[in-house]
């Protein structure tokens, strides 16, 4: 099997998760898919030079994470804030036939308010199911920092959700 055929066999199964992380970070489907395409391009070009020690998954997520952070910084500089509310629903999330509970929209809206580094660690660990060591590789920080950042992210999200509920009692579904 040639190098690239092997690469495709290994990378292809990870593409859906890369798309999910990109979309959760950028909150825009087209931007996110653009970014994933950049990741695949870079992965293919640097396939020989990748560090064998790191898992393929953390290598790809690291490329994606760095591109995503660049893109978010670029947006911030240009004053673009594609918040969940301003993005047409179909561009953001899931197939239109899928039912979204109020809770799911809630948690994404609150997630969007976290600082980028906290949102990243929460997504990598909770949603992408990376080990702490893999998350440390992706974020290029020591494992102790992964743990403290994760702890801060969860606590901030918890407080936001708790206070958000209190701040908008009319948004609650009353049965």
């Amino acid at each position: 099997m040639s190098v690239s055929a092997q690469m495709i066999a290994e990378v292809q199964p990870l593409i859906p998760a890369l798309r999910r992380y990109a979309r959760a970070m950028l909150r825009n489907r087209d931007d996110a898919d653009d970014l994933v395409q950049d990741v695949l391009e870079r992965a293919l070009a640097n396939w020989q030079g990748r560090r064998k020690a790191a898992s393929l998954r953390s290598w790809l997520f690291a490329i994606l994470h760095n591109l995503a952070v660049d893109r978010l910084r670029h947006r911030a500089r240009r004053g673009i804030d594609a918040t969940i509310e301003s993005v047409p629903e179909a561009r953001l999330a899931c197939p239109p036939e899928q039912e979204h509970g109020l809770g799911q929209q809630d948690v994404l809206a609150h997630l969007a308010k976290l600082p980028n580094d906290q949102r990243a660690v929460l997504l990598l660990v909770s949603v992408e199911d990376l080990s702490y060591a893999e998350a440390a590789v992706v974020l290029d920080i020591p494992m102790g920092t992964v743990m403290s950042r994760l702890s801060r992210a969860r606590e901030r999200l918890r407080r936001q959700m708790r206070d958000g509920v209190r701040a908008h009692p009319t948004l609650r579904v009353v049965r």
Partner: protein
Amino acid sequence: MSEEPVTEAELQAHVDGHLLPAREPVVLAWLAAHPEEARRIAAYRAQADALRQALEGIVDEPVPAALDLRLQLQHLGRRAGLRPAAAAACAAGLLLAGGAGGWALRGKALPPQTGTAALAREAASSYAVYANDATRPVELAAAERGALDSWFSRRLARPIRAPNLQAAGLTLIGGRLVATEHGAAALYLYQDQVGRRLVVYLRPMQVERTDHMQPRRDGAIGGWTWADDGLGFGVFGTAPVDSLHGAANIVRSQLKSV
């Protein structure tokens, strides 16, 4: 009973199921003795569950053709008449040769073969060939609408009916079946008061079974494509893209999960 200390990192690991098995009972006992902390940790678990649920739909979406490495490889191979392994080598070579200019597979070289981009091409071609055919633009006229709908339903293996576009000032002329690489497609032809024609094109989707509505243009012919639950749609014509959008929205609302 003296209590073993538990670290915050261990509590986080407990949330994620990464705690050393030997420490699980210790952490559980500690949480039982600290109900406030137990509530906090339970909230973290609920958070993680909610995030996973809110985002899990994305991994079930079909990978867009532009991001599908296997598909890109096949196209490259088919075009060059190569076996997959040779095509793979070729792909890598092209990519590396492309360097920073990059992504030889980005699709500019070859027209889209799948997904709603391919559907757009088919719909625009069908418009060009059939919409203004002077002799026989349709195979079954609007008068036989019932027969038309059941014919399409049979050939596309799902219930299909002609959308009513009166609200957009469009009257059904009739329809025909169109052959594509992806099997049969249904074509409904409409006409507005000033004689401008519009096609509504439908076919089952293998790739991009669900896709958002987006504008398309192919020369003078423009339109909109989307896909819902395995059925792809195209609304094409030579009218301004905004007025086509109005018609597309009506089609979508009427034919959603037919």
